[in-house]
């Protein structure tokens, strides 16, 4: 084969490879656009909505928002609690958009397990996701895929699907750590009881103007929570 023939063959192959690469990139983008949004292979609902809500907001352990934010809103919740799920869908997104993303406040999720043993298992799984910076995503995704109270749906497969969907990177580490976090779940439940809370979700706020922790109970609207955060800062 002459140099000229070899050159023509090489350039033809290069052009073919370039077209192929372009097609692969386009297919990847199309698949990604039509997928659930988290890159995982679970069939959880609302993964995209959770991704969009929390995108760009830092998460440390179970705290969502800038760790230096002056005001801390604390949610005592039970992952099996339907009202907590409703809060997660309908009230907290407004707070995240208006105050957390701006760095005015951070939200800390603490387990207050009042419904049953499955709440403790779920809470520990959330804490383990928090160890990998996916605590809030886990909680939000869990709420949006919640089943009936104590119906047995909180099994290993469901929890792993939520962890995967939440973007927990090291599932083996998550799995081994969650077994050792039930004491922490019980500790925050005790803390909620000591504060006098009797139901979920219950909220408290801490800030420069609150002189310690201020109990909010269960505010009925995002506006009430926003006002409490503003008063605390």
């Amino acid at each position, binding site marked *: 084969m002459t140099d000229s023939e070899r050159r023509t063959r090489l350039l033809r192959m290069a052009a073919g*490879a370039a077209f192929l*690469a372009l097609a692969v990139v386009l297919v*990847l983008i199309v698949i*990604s656009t039509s997928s659930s949004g988290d*890159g995982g292979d679970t069939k959880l609902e609302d993964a995209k909505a959770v991704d969009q809500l929390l995108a*760009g907001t830092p998460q440390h352990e179970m705290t969502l928002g800038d760790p230096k934010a002056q005001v801390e809103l604390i949610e005592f919740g039970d992952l099996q609690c339907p009202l907590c799920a409703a809060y997660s869908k309908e009230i907290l997104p407004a707070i995240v958009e208006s105050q957390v993303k701006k760095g005015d406040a951070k939200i800390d999720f603490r387990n207050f397990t009042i419904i049953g043993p499955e709440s403790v298992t779920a809470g520990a799984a959330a804490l383990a996701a928090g160890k990998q910076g996916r605590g809030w995503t886990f909680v939000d995704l869990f709420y949006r895929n919640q089943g009936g109270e104590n119906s047995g749906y909180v099994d290993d497969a469901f929890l792993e699907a939520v962890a995967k969907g939440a973007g927990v990177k*090291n599932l083996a580490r998550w799995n081994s750590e969650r077994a050792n976090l039930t004491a922490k779940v019980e500790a925050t439940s005790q803390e909620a009881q000591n504060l006098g809370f009797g139901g979920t979700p219950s909220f408290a706020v801490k800030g420069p103007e609150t002189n310690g922790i201020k109990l909010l109970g269960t505010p009925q609207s995002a506006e009430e929570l926003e006002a409490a955060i503003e008063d605390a800062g």
Partner: protein
Amino acid sequence: MSFPGEGNLQRAIAFAAALGVGVAAYIAISESGGGSPVCLAGGSGCRTVAESSYSHVAGVNIAVFGIVGYLLLLASAFFANDTARFGGFLVALGGFGYSIYLTYIEIFKIEAICQWCVGSAILMAILFGLSAARLIGYGGAAEGLPDRA
């Protein structure tokens, strides 16, 4: 303006690929302990991207694939034959295409930008341009051909 000599293209590819190895190695090392690269201008974009599910493929940090790609490109710069020219072009093409996809994911899915990933994408784009120029200018030329004027 004359077409750059193959030696110059090889040196430019080696330089850009060596920078790429550094950038990808930094991303991989900073994420290996569960951390994230530090954004030069502050912000949490790098952390958000590092913590997203897109940062790993089959449990492997994608920065590791980047290191391998840049090393292959670096190796291709040391040989003046068609295997190196075409192989380098294919690696750069794959890296460039994947960088476009990842940049799309950063902007539209994760909604956060990591400067280190953007830096790597720019390096891959440059390497693609250099490797394509090398293949177009010197593909089919005999091994060790002197630089074309």
